[in-house]
């Protein structure tokens, strides 16, 4: 009889229209690091929501130390010693580290907070596990790595025995990832049981003892990491062999499309400048990638080029024209397209129909608006149908589906379709494949390469190292608002890239 810390047996959870979890079994041994592998939409988050009592499964049971338990809400999970570091941290930005750690389990006398002893406990824990934090610092002022350590301390402070890490490495530098792996191993050694949710095979191979794989809501199997390979895991996850590299010919750059000189953009988050004196060029026929850890000025850099934020200093030339002060509409009409980082914030009007979203950049053209200012709805419909067909955008009611009702992947496809179909001279693609499954990623990568091969310039901004390495022709690394290095993806390594991204190395 194995000694399991927590078991989820034959869990089935249905939602209208889909079965999110179909008879899934997950058994976590005491003191092991167990990876849960699956693509976006494979059912990992639903399974975790069931574990935390946010959803009740239609079938199946959860056992803790061999006994059936009922989990109705996160409090129950907490009482059973289950804690989780969420992919998007659950931290209150304007609270201190300490306040965030004690939130929900505040030491108090008659309701009045007693923080002194809590602080001692936090400091002791951070010493024991090597989790450096400043308890009095505000969350909004500290690095992402330290925020993650705060999240881990939150679990340890509650004496949780079962620690769940949901995609913990997405926002970290390679070096920080290494640190995290060490911390996880240390925790496991202390007897904590760890569930590590990820779709990154390298990390799983490195840190996990066993791995359970989900695909499209179904349980595929559990394997010992020692007896498996990366290729096998990937086959289990996707259901077929995947190309790890994007097929593309060497770049043949020609004339300069975008020329940026000394660009400086102020930050909205802090007093410092977010982009500091950046100069670069992008040519026809090449994909230039801005790599870096999230929050190092990439967002503001793109805002500066697309016109969403004014420049504090510097100059932008596009197709030989100075557009430093040009309004956004002019840049768009001149031939700049922008696949925005946040599709809900910028990319879509969620309450508009799909067809209205597809003409968001072109509705004012004579094809779609008559001289008197009336919309040509027939033409909009025709155009939308063409794009939907060509880019395989799927939705419930076709062109009249509200954008809100579409899946994230199809929303992203719609944006990509809209932006690429404009046939722009410069395509700015920020995180174009975020949250998509492997098939959609491959498809979008192909579209981007095709666009390059047609003689256009592409400026890619990505946080995914694999994407950076496989898609780009030239890599520029951004660190704290500056370009700290230019690398050739054919000759560089992920490790070297990481050193630049972490600011440990610069040219």
């Amino acid at each position, binding site marked *: 009889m194995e000694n399991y810390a927590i078991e989820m047996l034959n869990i089935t959870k249905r939602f209208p229209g889909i079965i999110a979890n179909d008879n899934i079994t997950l058994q976590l041994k005491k003191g092991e690091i167990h990876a849960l592998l699956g693509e976006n939409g494979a059912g990992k*988050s639903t399974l975790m929501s069931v574990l935390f009592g*946010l959803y009740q499964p239609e079938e199946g049971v959860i056992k803790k130390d061999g006994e059936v338990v009922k989990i109705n*809400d*996160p*409090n129950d999970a*907490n009482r059973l010693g289950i804690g*989780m570091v*969420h992919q*998007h*941290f*659950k*931290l*209150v*930005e*304007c*609270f201190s580290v300490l*306040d*965030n750690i*004690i*939130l*929900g*389990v*505040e030491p*108090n006398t008659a*309701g*009045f*907070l007693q923080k002194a002893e809590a602080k001692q406990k936090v400091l002791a824990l951070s010493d024991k596990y090597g989790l450096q934090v400043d308890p009095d610092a505000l969350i909004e002022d500290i690095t992402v790595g330290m925020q993650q350590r705060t999240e881990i301390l*939150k679990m340890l402070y509650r004496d949780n025995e079962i620690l769940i890490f949901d995609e913990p490495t997405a926002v970290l530098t390679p070096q920080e990832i290494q640190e995290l792996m060490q911390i996880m191993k240390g925790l496991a050694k202390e007897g904590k049981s760890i569930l590590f949710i990820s779709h990154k095979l390298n990390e799983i191979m490195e840190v996990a003892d066993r791995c359970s794989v989900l695909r499209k809501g179904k349980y595929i199997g559990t394997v010992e990491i020692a007896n498996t390979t990366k290729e096998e895991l990937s086959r289990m996850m996707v259901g077929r062999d995947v190309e790890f590299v994007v097929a593309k010919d060497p770049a043949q750059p020609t004339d300069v499309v975008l020329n940026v000189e000394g660009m400086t953009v102020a930050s909205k988050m802090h007093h410092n400048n977010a982009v500091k004196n950046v100069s670069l060029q992008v040519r026809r026929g090449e994909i230039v990638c801005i790599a870096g850890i999230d929050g190092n000025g990439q967002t503001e850099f793109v805002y500066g080029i697309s016109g969403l934020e004014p420049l504090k200093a510097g100059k932008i030339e596009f197709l030989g024209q100075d557009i430093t002060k040009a309004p956004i509409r002019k840049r768009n009409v001149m031939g700049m397209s922008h696949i925005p980082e946040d599709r809900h914030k910028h990319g879509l009007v969620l309450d508009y129909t799909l067809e209205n979203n597809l003409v968001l950049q072109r509705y004012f053209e004579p094809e779609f608006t008559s001289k008197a200012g009336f919309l040509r709805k027939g033409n909009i419909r025709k155009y939308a149908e063409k794009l939907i067909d060509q880019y395989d955008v799927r939705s419930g009611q076709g062109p009249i589906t509200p954008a809100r009702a579409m899946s994230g992947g199809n929303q992203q496809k719609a944006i990509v379709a809209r932006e690429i179909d404009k046939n722009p001279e410069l395509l700015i693609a920020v995180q174009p494949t975020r949250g998509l499954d492997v098939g959609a990623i491959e498809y979008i990568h192909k579209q981007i390469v095709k666009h390059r091969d047609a003689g256009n310039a592409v400026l890619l901004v990505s946080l995914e190292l694999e994407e950076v390495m496989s898609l780009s022709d030239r890599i520029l690394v951004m660190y704290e608002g500056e370009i700290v290095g230019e690398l050739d993806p054919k000759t560089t390594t992920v490790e070297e890239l990481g050193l630049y991204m972490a600011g440990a190395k610069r040219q």
Partner: protein
Amino acid sequence: MLLLVQYTLVFASVLLLVALGGCISEHSGVINLALEGIMVIGALGGALVMKFLPYTHGESSQFLMFICVLGAAVLFGVIYSTLLAFACINLKADQTIVGTALNMLGTALATVVVKSMNTAISPDDHSSEIKYIDAKKAFLTNVGDFELNWFMIVAVIMLVVAFVLLYKTKFGLRLRACGEHPQAAASVGISVFKMRWAGVLLSGLLGGLGGITYITVGVSTWKFENGVAGFGFLSLAVMIFGAWHPFKIAGAALLFGLFRALGNVYNGFDFLKALNIPSAVYNMLPYIVSLIVLAFTSKKSRAPKAEGIPYDKGMR
């Protein structure tokens, strides 16, 4: 001059009480646009007690009257605020529409109640007025020439209580977490619904207090058709100007109170009288000042991040 100070303080007390209510509600994540209506209903509760509770000039009777009026105003305010809480928290209704509806409803309801009551007492009386000339004296004490309104003291106490509650207690920490990042609060087992209910009910309490204070300033009869003349909204301006922090709100309330008081007492100042500015201009003053102040403070204002957004368990 003394009169100006007196009016400033008492109007500031009203604004402070109500703005603190708005502040607590917004820290929990609910924008309370219904403060105006809550004030009216709170005032109604207090006025009814003043009308019907027998009052003699003894000290014990005075104290009893004060406690009962205060209790009734609080009770009415809290009960009325449940309408907002239920709609905005449980049913996730649009907070602006519901707030507006409750403001209109407050005045309409109070008018209907007072008119029907007056008509029932004497069939020819169709006014919406309640008189409380005698009872009002229960909350006034003269300190020299200065007329101290007990509600000023209540306001100061509430200021301290609100500060301690928000920043020194477990409850306050949880409440603010719900207004900033309800998902984070929920993930550590805090019931966002409960905390938001608490926030709204507390704002009902403070709004009711503010309402009763408002109708005892300088007058001894109140016509409920008139509502409370936008004081609920002025208080929201005070709250924004005070950056959602109790002590800063107190400062803002004093400033706005001064401008409001000018409208009541400008006749007492010879140089103001000599200017011969129509009274309508003085009436407009607090509103104009608040617009200007808002124009300069709103851009950088730091409201609780999740305010106005209904909390949905399914959203993560």
